[in-house]
């Protein structure tokens, strides 16, 4: 890929990398809890099965997406990105303004550990199965969001490969740090990441929806940056206007 093409791909790579970072950290917390409480066999089996399912979804969706007319694809993906991005942005604004509790990986880890230990007392014979399902569910749920983001930011302009690279880089980074620290990654500024990704996905959403409806954006791809600045300004202004003491209770 040429330098100019990488320049055009940079927003897609950055969006998929940052969004994947958030999702992989959440999945890692659950898999870590399963691994520590029940051993690594069910954790790895559940994770492996989930990754297989996610890879199958991508392999099945890829050829289907190629057959959809570009404008229709841009419109559908644009609407989904708007819904997805605005949801993240709304929640990130409410969290940073202190109206919704911040997501707490340590609390999530404790909750999952307590759940698995309670299950151990009641369903000992099926415990490995339950632990594997917990890891499977976590990786599929968070992974589905990663798959959607990669497809959404990549499919409209043939940027699936660079968008996938962004997601893979996030997985490798989280795994690397996770193996090093061997505990939940509580220091990841999840809400800030969600705020940034919400802005980027909302900007992509407006852009693709417009292209899908036949809008010729003045300035072309540069409008993505303009939309991102607009949503950043709105988010920052709302946060400042509505700020109250931050809730620390985990959801």
């Amino acid at each position, binding site marked *: 890929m040429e330098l100019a093409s990488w320049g055009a791909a940079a927003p897609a790579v950055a969006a998929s990398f940052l969004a994947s970072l958030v999702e992989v950290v959440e999945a890692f917390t659950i898999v870590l809890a399963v691994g520590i409480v029940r051993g690594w066999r069910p954790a790895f089996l559940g994770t492996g099965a989930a990754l297989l399912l996610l890879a199958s979804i991508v392999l099945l969706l890829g050829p289907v997406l190629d057959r959809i007319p570009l404008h229709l694809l841009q*419109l559908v993906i644009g*609407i*989904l990105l*708007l*819904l*997805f991005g*605005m*949801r993240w*942005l*709304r*929640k990130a*604004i*409410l969290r940073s*303004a202190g*109206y919704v509790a911040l997501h707490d990986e340590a609390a999530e880890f404790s909750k999952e550990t307590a759940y698995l230990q309670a299950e151990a007392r009641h369903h000992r014979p099926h415990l490995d199965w339950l632990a594997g*399902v917990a890891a*499977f*569910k976590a990786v*599929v*749920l968070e992974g*589905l*969001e990663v798959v*959607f983001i990669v497809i959404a930011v990549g499919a409209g302009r043939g940027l699936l490969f660079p968008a996938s690279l962004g997601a893979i880089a996030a997985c490798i980074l989280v795994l690397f740090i996770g193996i090093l620290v061997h505990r939940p990654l509580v220091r990841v500024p999840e809400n800030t990441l969600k705020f940034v990704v919400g802005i980027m996905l*909302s900007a992509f*959403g*407006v852009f693709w*929806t*417009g292209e899908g*409806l*036949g*809008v*010729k*954006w003045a300035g072309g791809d540069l409008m993505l940056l303009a*939309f991102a600045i*607009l*949503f950043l300004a*709105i988010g920052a202004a*709302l946060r400042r206007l*509505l700020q109250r003491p931050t809730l620390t209770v985990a959801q």
Partner: protein
Amino acid sequence: MNTFKSLVHEFAGMFVDDGSLAIAILLIVAVAGWIAMRFENTSVVIGIILVAGSAGALIENVMRTTRKANQGR
């Protein structure tokens, strides 16, 4: 079955958290789509509707949510 149900529920939840924001966005896109089909040379108008509409929907939703939360304190 429960795992499947929760997967479907979570998948829908990827796009819809607050229903009214999702409905507002879909309405904005529907209006923009209707104009695109009905009239010609509407690129600028559709662009403005999409940008102003989605930004307005976000501001209104966040303001309403915080107002409700403040009333409930």
